[in-house]
């Protein structure tokens, strides 16, 4: 008993010592988890999981981390990544209904497939090498074919059109990458609680992948400590955005569907991840300003906010925050337990209708032309209804203008003619100098590098529509450059439209506690939207005919070797001499034959050999030939008949 006590005591001492080491530096590794739920106007629900993991700048414990995933920190150290973002997306973000002018959409509306960009902290000459190594490392880490971004034909180095201005930035995307659980599982492995506990326990694979939109993102940035001898800290932000359709039982079509966490995900939250510093659930409701009371402090009013005639929440929120156009309900899942799991539900009592804030211009992109030779890519920007309300206009020289950056990568087999760039503003063709403020073009090189176009448009605020078209030629690929499903066509990655003068942020009226999700929303983020991926049908050879190829090759080989052998073997001079000698003396059988033919014809024998007209000769030949053919055909028919009859 005493020994047991002693050992326990020892253990306690050791533990406290360890804790003292861990918390020795002024900052510690922090992990926080959050979930934002948001009903969308088109009867869907958006769920945004947000996990943040911070490793402070320190070298006190070397490469050892408590919470921070070692794989990521090794990645950062090895390739000297300054900032990096990787996203896996399935489905399309609906800018009209799900919003385009809030931090959530501008950061989480990603192009289909895989998108990766990274800024490196290495000398300019080593950026490409680092990028290539990074793609391979990530490919292994996330079970995805990110390594295809290694080839110089698939990535580009945007200078200013993408966002972060840096010449050490590389950007690439793989539109055809299929996203599934095999990508989610390694992503979850980076979390300290994986999906066993806390908010991430909600991620039931079938319900996550049943959604209309699914985007998992990993963003990491290094924070310079500023102190000598101290390494840089890393901030890892992992988000998963899903748009789900709640099961509706109500017949009324204008009624918003009611839902709860368990009905959406099929699971409930039982307690938080114990390693997380904060673990919150947020519910954002837009367009409820009609109920916006002046004073939210009083208990009754706050109660009225979450339980009123319009809708009802199943749990009482900890706090209610007000934003310019929405309310944010904050819940803490600390109180939940096994017996009483956290199951937030929203029940609508009255039909409700609202609309999301839209980006100033709605972008769409499509292909023009027909046939396998030429075509054009057109980008259409249309003014949205919410444009007038938006701030961020540039009022230089008394003119109200909207700036729009367009960043676009073209694969090399899309040979773009940059001189054919045409810009129509409100259906009037404009010269480049009128609307184009800046343009940066790097043309593609065949089979070496992809083309890239960045341009900055300056448009008047009252613009209704802008159309940009640029012509291209379709290139020919070498037979071994075609992917396995070449007949599907080839993808042109999404173009990125960003509005450098417009920034989206949620502006909360109250001062917040330090929730990473909310602080990231509070930061001003660039309003951006990705266009559709385009499918270009290229001319493809008929791959399904290996048999023909083999046949033709064999024929050619046979012809080649046959004639070669002929040439090598034959001696023309010898043959001529032989023929001459043959001409003098005729063989016995031949004489016999000629005699028979002469008898049949009733002519003397001498005539036959001396002068015979070619026509007569050919008629002899033809009759003989026909006889032979008939003989052979007869034999073949007989053989066929007897061979198959049995």
């Amino acid at each position, binding site marked *: 008993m005493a020994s047991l006590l002693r050992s326990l005591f020892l253990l306690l001492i050791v533990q406290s010592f360890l804790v003292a080491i861990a918390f020795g530096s002024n900052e510690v590794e922090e992990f926080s988890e959050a979930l934002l739920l948001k009903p969308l106007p088109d009867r869907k629900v958006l769920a945004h999981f947000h996990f943040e993991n911070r490793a402070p700048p320190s070298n006190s414990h070397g490469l050892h981390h408590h919470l921070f995933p070692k794989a990521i920190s090794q990645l950062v150290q090895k390739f000297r990544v300054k900032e990096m973002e990787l996203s896996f997306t399935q489905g399309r973000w609906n800018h009209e209904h799900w919003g385009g002018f809030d931090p959530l959409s501008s950061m989480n509306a990603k192009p289909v497939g895989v998108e990766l960009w990274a800024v490196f902290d290495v000398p300019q000459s080593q950026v490409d090498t680092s990028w290539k190594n990074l793609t391979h490392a990530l490919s292994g880490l996330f079970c995805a074919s990110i390594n295809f971004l290694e080839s110089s034909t698939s990535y580009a180095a945007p200078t200013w059109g993408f966002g972060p201005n840096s010449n050490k930035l590389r950007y690439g995307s793989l539109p055809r990458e299929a996203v599934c659980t095999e990508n989610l599982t390694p992503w979850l492995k980076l979390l300290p609680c994986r999906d066993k506990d806390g908010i991430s326990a909600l991620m039931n694979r079938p319900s996550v992948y049943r959604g209309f939109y699914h985007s998992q993102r990993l963003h990491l940035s290094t924070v310079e400590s500023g102190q000598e001898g101290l390494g840089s800290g890393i901030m890892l932000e992992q988000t998963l955005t899903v748009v789900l359709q709640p099961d509706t039982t109500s017949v009324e079509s204008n009624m918003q569907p009611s839902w709860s966490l368990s009905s959406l995900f099929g699971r409930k939250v039982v307690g938080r991840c114990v390693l997380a510093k904060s673990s919150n659930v947020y519910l954002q409701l837009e367009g409820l300003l009609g109920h916006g009371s002046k004073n939210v402090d009083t208990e009754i009013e706050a109660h009225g906010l979450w339980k009123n005639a319009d809708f009802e929440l199943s749990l009482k929120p900890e706090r209610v925050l007000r934003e310019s156009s929405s309310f944010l309900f904050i819940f803490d899942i600390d109180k939940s337990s096994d017996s009483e799991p956290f199951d937030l539900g929203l029940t609508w009592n009255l039909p409700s209708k609202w609309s999301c804030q839209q980006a100033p211009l709605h972008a769409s992109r499509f292909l*023009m032309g027909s046939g396998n030779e030429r075509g054009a890519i057109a980008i259409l920007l249309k003014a949205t209804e919410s444009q007038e309300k938006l701030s961020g206009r540039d009022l230089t020289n008394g003119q109200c203008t909207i700036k729009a950056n367009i960043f676009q990568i073209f694969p090399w087999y899309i040979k773009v003619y940059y001189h054919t760039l045409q810009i129509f503003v409100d259906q009037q063709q404009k010269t480049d100098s009128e609307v184009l403020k800046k343009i940066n073009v790097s043309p593609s090189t065949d089979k070496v590098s992809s083309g890239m176009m960045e341009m900055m448009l300056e448009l008047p605020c009252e613009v209704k529509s802008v159309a940009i078209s640029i012509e291209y030629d379709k290139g020919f690929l070498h037979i071994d450059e075609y992917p396995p499903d070449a*007949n*599907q066509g080839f*993808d042109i990655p999404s173009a990125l439209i960003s509005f450098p003068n417009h920034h989206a942020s949620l502006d909360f009226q109250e001062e917040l506690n330090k929730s990473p999700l909310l602080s990231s929303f509070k930061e001003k983020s660039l309003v951006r939207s990705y266009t*559709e991926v385009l499918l270009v049908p290229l001319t493809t050879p008929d791959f399904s005919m290996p048999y023909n190829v083999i046949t033709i090759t064999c024929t050619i080989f046979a012809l080649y070797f046959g004639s070669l052998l002929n040439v090598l073997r034959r001696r023309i001079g010898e043959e001529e001499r032989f*023929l001459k000698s*043959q001409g003098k003396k005729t063989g016995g059988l031949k004489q016999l034959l000629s005699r028979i033919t002469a008898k049949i014809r009733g002519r003397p024998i001498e005539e036959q050999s001396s002068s015979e007209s*070619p026509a007569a000769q050919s008629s002899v030949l033809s009759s003989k030939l026909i006889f032979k053919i008939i003989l052979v055909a007869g034999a073949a028919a007989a053989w066929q008949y007897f061979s198959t009859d049995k």
Partner: protein
Amino acid sequence: MAAVNRDNEEEVKTDDGSPKIKPRPIVRLGIFLIAHSPVFSVVFSAAGVLALLLLPLLAKNTYISENALMPGSARSMLSNRDVSDGSKLVKDIKNFRLNHEGQGVEVQKLIGKYMSDMGAEVSYQKFHPEGNQFHPLHFFSGPDSYTLLENVSCASYGVNVAGIIRAPRGDGKESIVLVTPYDFINGGDYEDLSLGIVSSLFSLLSRVTWLSKDIIWLVADSRYGDYRPVAAWLTEYHSPSFKVSDLLKCDEQNTADNFRRAGTMAAALVLKVDGRSEKFEDTLSIYAEASNGQMPNLDLINVVNYLAVHRQGFYVKVEKVVSLLSSSWLKIFGEIFEAVGKLAHMLNPDWNFGIPAADYLEGSATLASSLYSQALGIPTGPHGAFRDYQVDAITLKVSPRFPPDSKTRQHDFFLRGARLLEGTIRSVNNLLEKFHQSFFLYMLTSPSKFISVGVYMIAFALLVAPLPMVAASLYIDGCKSLTNSTDNPTENFKSWKWLDAAKQVFTLHLFGFIVTLLPYFICQVPGQHSPTNRSIMWGTTSSSLLLITFVTMPGCSPFSSRLHGTNWAILKSVTISAAFIGLCLMSIINFATAEIGALLLVPTCLMAQPIKPALRSRRLKSLLGAFCSIVLLTIGFPVMFFAISKGLLGEGLVGLSLGGEFWTWLESLWAWKSATYLYIGMVHLPCWLLCLCILFHPS
């Protein structure tokens, strides 16, 4: 030993007695064929015609080549609820029509509202009803040569309604198009039914989760024909003009330019409901021919046919020439083939190529229709507009067996029609790649039987095979006779003898080219003219042009004196070569045209010979030959052939209206940019004229 014998036999002795090395076998074969060209040309031509007649026997059963399609493997998800949605739309439209007479636009709004209620994105598109105008320079240019018409009247324009369902988890790269032509002003009850079928389906598709391609439902305003609205919508989809459109100015209704697109089109289905079926079952007719004999991928037809026959129990048919079904000569052929087939089967049970005579008749009637529609080069429905953009499309014409106002049957009809479309869409939706696996070059002899290019090429190859042979043999003959007659054996001159004939051939081809362009200028003549007048104008200008050609270039005239005229054998040789080249070129562009053209042109060219010596000799054989060539030349004249083919198709034509009919026919050919028009003007007509020249040759 035998080989040596043969060698010795075939050895050709030269003048000095020394043995010459025999030519290579292929050369010998060529010489042999040329030497016996009359026999071989008869054999080959007959074999060509026979091969054409044999085609229905050689037809293979269709099969689904692309495994990914998997038609009918999924259970239909269409429920009664969806069908009642469709029925409701039809009822609403009917009620609306009764209450608001002649307000087409509002019907469009109604359909648009239904679409958006189902969760689709709706857009309206205005278009000009004016069709394509003939312009000689735009003949082969693509459909993107979109010219804005200057004076647009706001009074007449059509409005298309398009709804797009976005695939929930799709990436939006591809789409499938459903088209229902609908006359918003005076559409009949049957047209309403097509809307009902598609809206039932649309209601389902807005809920399903398996979609990977977006679905577009286009309700085309068929007031101005079926084809034009679809073509206009496709033009707007693929090559919009970003400039100010005149149509937007006359904006009496608020259809702002919110044209929506949904990626590359994978396939398109046009659905029409018309007329009552004569059969006991509901009938489904498949139309596939697009412009210039282009066909959609056979797999698309296969999928529809499979689902219609094996799942939904439709009676599926393709178009056929009805008059051929009762023709006795074809029946005799059918019986002969049947007998031969039976005999072969008796000899060897494995030889199963015989088919019943009735099947043969049916097959040949379908094949003739297939050949005719492909040769004409005019699309047989709105699906033709899609082919211009390399989209596989077919038109499905459904004829219900009940009158349109029968409510009870309507539900069942909607259910089956929508299930058929659902299955087809599901198959196309499964497809990862575009249609490429199955045939593009084929002819149908029944909905489930086809003849691939490898088989039907044989008939054409056999037909045109004699042409180079005869040309070569005639050339040799002509050279010989010329050297004999002129008594001036200068070697230099000898090799250029064909030049005179070539000049004549070239002149007449140039004439043909001008005649081809003439209609454009005749169309420019101010004032309204009837087709008959125009054809007379065309006829007179062309014949006067021909006269001028003959006067200015005496070498070309058949009536010129003997001194100017070229040797007819060489002229015929060059003519035949030109015809051969023309036919081979045409076979690449539009095979069916070349096939029918070869049927006409090959015997004419082969039989053409001067009638003067024949009349002089008064021998029965030569007189018969001359008579044959005159008959063939008469048939070969395009107008004449047109009249005969019309007669065959069972449409009587009398007198002067023939010219007008012919003009309208040609007008339709060039309006549809059919290469057949070019063939008639630039290959057939010159060759026919040259044969005429040979016929009246003064030798």
